[in-house]
């Protein structure tokens, strides 16, 4: 059996440069990759949050409140040693919470590498001036770019090195603490706990919004899969690609509005009273979500004792 001649002929689209083909793949596949990673991360959070670890047993609102406090405490630290202690503590907490170390590190790595990349330039005297630590290069004359004058000698400064290390450790520790929260708390409980600190209607809006994000993300995935299955050429890149993205955003908006109207009707038919809604008031009690429901467990008491000792030690070290 021979391949017919018409099938062997290259179409106009097929003859387009490889670059355009790659670019087309890039914008669709990048969005798909983002969606997959978004869904995967949420699923992993769900899995690790159901493990029988230490932080999983701590009451969600208490955990959210204390870890947020730790993040603020961390942001006030000036000593590199104190900041490093936060990283070590979050690693230890990840271990006793049975979070797979590889997964934990994988989550932190993007923020770590991004900060490492940009903080490397801050080690140079061009950015942070100070005592020379290591000489790198010597120009024959002075150069100026915009408002920045490039000195004749380029070297790593002691202050720049310490500043970069401070930033890198601070960002890594902060991100570790945030991921400790997300990896040890089921997403629905987490969003409920976060919204429980918000006033009035915000509680309902945040938790409802979080739920429907997944619905809309699924729609975007369907748009892309449909688009990819209908197109084999690279012509969809460029203006066409931008128009397609814009049209899907518009369609998504129409879906959101339709859904919100249906939701409003469904809520009304179930006796939901909007008149009780106030943006900055306590609002109607949410079953199982109020502070009055709180009962201390052994894990909660252990966590409170640890938090008090840790905070005390950090403050004592700062005052020394």
């Amino acid at each position, binding site marked *: 059996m021979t391949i017919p001649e018409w099938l062997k002929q290259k179409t106009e689209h097929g003859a387009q440069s490889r670059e355009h083909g790659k670019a087309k793949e890039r914008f669709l596949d990048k969005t798909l990759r983002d969606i997959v990673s978004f869904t995967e991360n949420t699923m992993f959070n769900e899995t690790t949050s159901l493990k029988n670890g230490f932080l999983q047993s701590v009451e969600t609102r208490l955990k959210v409140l204390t870890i947020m406090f730790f993040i603020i405490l961390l942001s006030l630290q000036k000593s590199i040693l104190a900041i490093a202690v936060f990283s070590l503590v979050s690693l230890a907490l990840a271990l006793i919470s049975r979070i797979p170390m590889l997964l934990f590190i994988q989550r932190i790595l993007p923020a770590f590498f991004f900060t490492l990349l940009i903080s490397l330039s*801050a080690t140079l005297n061009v950015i942070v001036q100070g005592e020379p630590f290591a000489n790198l290069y010597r120009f024959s004359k002075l150069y100026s770019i915009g408002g920045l004058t490039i000195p004749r000698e380029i070297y790593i400064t002691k202050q720049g090195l310490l500043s970069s290390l401070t930033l890198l450790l601070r960002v890594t520790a902060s991100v570790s603490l945030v991921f400790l929260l997300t990896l040890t708390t089921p997403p629905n409980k987490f969003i409920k706990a976060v919204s429980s600190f918000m006033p009035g209607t915000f509680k309902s809006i945040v938790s409802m919004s979080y739920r429907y994000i997944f619905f809309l993300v699924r729609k975007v995935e369907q748009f892309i899969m449909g688009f990819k299955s209908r197109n084999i050429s690279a012509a969809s890149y460029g203006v066409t690609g931008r128009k397609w993205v814009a049209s899907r955003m518009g369609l*998504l908006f129409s879906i959101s509005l339709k859904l919100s*109207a249906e939701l409003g009707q469904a809520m009304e038919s179930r006796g939901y009273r909007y008149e009780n809604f106030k943006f900055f008031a306590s609002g109607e009690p949410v079953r199982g979500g109020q502070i009055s429901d709180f009962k201390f467990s052994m894990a909660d008491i252990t966590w409170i004792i640890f938090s008090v000792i840790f905070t005390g030690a950090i403050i004592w070290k700062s005052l020394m």
Partner: protein
Amino acid sequence: MHIPDGYLGPYTYGGLWAAIVPIWIYASGKIKETLKASQVPFLALSAAFSFVIMLFNVPIPGGTTGHATGATLIAILIGPWAAIIAVSIALIIQSFMFGDGGITAIGANCFNIAFADVLVGYGIYRLVAGVRGQSPQATRRGGGSGVISTRHLIGAGAGAYIGINLAAFLTAFELGIQTVLHVGTDGRPLYSPFPLAVTIPAIMIEHAVLFGIVEAVITIFVLIYLRKSHPDLIGRGL
């Protein structure tokens, strides 16, 4: 453009938290004036919409891709005060649930994107569209005619471009002043180590020549799509 934790010192992030809370209260009050039965799910879905459109990768000339914030677009579609709340909620969920943007920096990110970008972008849209005296509802309907004219599209594009560039400038400014506000006794910057002379050109150039244009083009294209396919949805906001 989302500032992570660790880059801003307490004076800056504390100050911006203090600035954004009254804005949220005022915006909530403005929404409450027109509170209708469908408003809670409407705001929730608008926040979800705001979150999801930031996921889209938009093709940029040269083969790379970028994201649009959609701040001005959402303001035009649902009204500026509802947009402030919707975009803020999207940013808060991003920061808490997905570590995208810092928790201490929520005030700063909301101030830059959900407030400055939204209000300035929307203000410029109204100014260029020449509908200063009309209500936001009428503006969203295209001067009350139910149609978005070319002038409205130009206004939307200009608003989106200037709005995102203002947000980028504020981000650059907030990062750049850390070297003045927070320096250790040994002379090392304690937070973002880059001075204004570095942060402003580094962040502004890419927004002025690339991301601002993408934001403007996407805003215009979405409005053209809605004008053609769902004209009934224009002006259905608050």
